[in-house]
């Protein structure tokens, strides 16, 4: 149940005011397994929805391919998470961390809505780099250590390499877009 202190972008995205309040009360955001499940499903859904929103606005084929992969991969993870939750009889429970993620997603989408063309591509990929780094940090510093159920913990551990690969993919695109805007 113990976990290290999340830092950097995780602090920005996950440890919102609400979570910080919880942390102040308890010493650390100590999520129950239904809450961890909710955070996981929410994190996947946010990236699916952003990719769907971005699709028609994306200028470069490589960036569109990335967005399509985000839809495919995060949908696959959510399908597995849903199946596991159903099998375990766990109902995902809303919590301050999920709410913080949703608030961050709304803000990101609002800023992206104003952009077009190459500027949109760069901003979308910048967001994806930051988001996947934050999710990776959350998995390592909060979600995996907090989870008690062995199967849910295993699922989160299996998801981790995919998030790391998405981050590397996004960073590669970020570099390419900077070199050839």
């Amino acid at each position, binding site marked *: 149940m113990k976990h290290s202190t999340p830092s950097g972008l995780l602090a920005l995205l996950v440890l919102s005011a609400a979570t910080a309040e919880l942390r102040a009360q308890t010493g650390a955001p100590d999520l129950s397994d239904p809450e961890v499940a909710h955070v996981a499903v929410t994190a996947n859904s946010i990236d699916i929805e952003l990719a769907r929103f971005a699709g028609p606005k994306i200028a470069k084929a490589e960036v569109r391919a990335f967005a399509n992969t985000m839809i*495919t991969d995060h949908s*696959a993870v959510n399908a597995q998470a849903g199946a596991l939750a159903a099998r375990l009889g766990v109902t995902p429970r809303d919590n301050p961390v999920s709410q913080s993620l949703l608030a961050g997603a709304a803000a990101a989408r609002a800023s992206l809505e104003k952009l077009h063309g190459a500027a949109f591509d760069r901003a979308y990929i910048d967001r994806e780099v930051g988001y996947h780094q934050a999710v990776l940090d959350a998995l390592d510093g909060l979600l995996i250590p907090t989870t008690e159920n062995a199967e849910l913990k295993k699922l989160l551990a299996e998801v981790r390499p995919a998030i*790391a*690969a998405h981050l590397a993919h996004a960073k590669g695109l970020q570099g390419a877009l900077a070199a050839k805007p």
Partner: protein
Amino acid sequence: MIRRVAAITLLGAGALAAGKPAVPRRHVVEIRGMAFVPAVLQVARGDTVIWVNRDIVPHTATAGKAWDTGTLAREERGVIVSRRPGRLEYGCTLHPTMRATLITR
């Protein structure tokens, strides 16, 4: 558990090695943790290579226009028979960071 042969691609004409023909072998490459395992596989001409996706997310094993397993969901498998000697770099079209090598003797 789903077991599906996603694609069978025969490369080149059926060229038997000179002399005593070797018995073709089967090799398995697991896709797990966003990597091909083993990352380098050496086979003989006529051998069968099977890719099995153990990851939650879908993958492909694709060597440009030479062969492509198509998209493999979790526990699905793709099969090729390698008939062209040489070294082929291949990867997953969905995840560009995933690369591996197939060497056919």
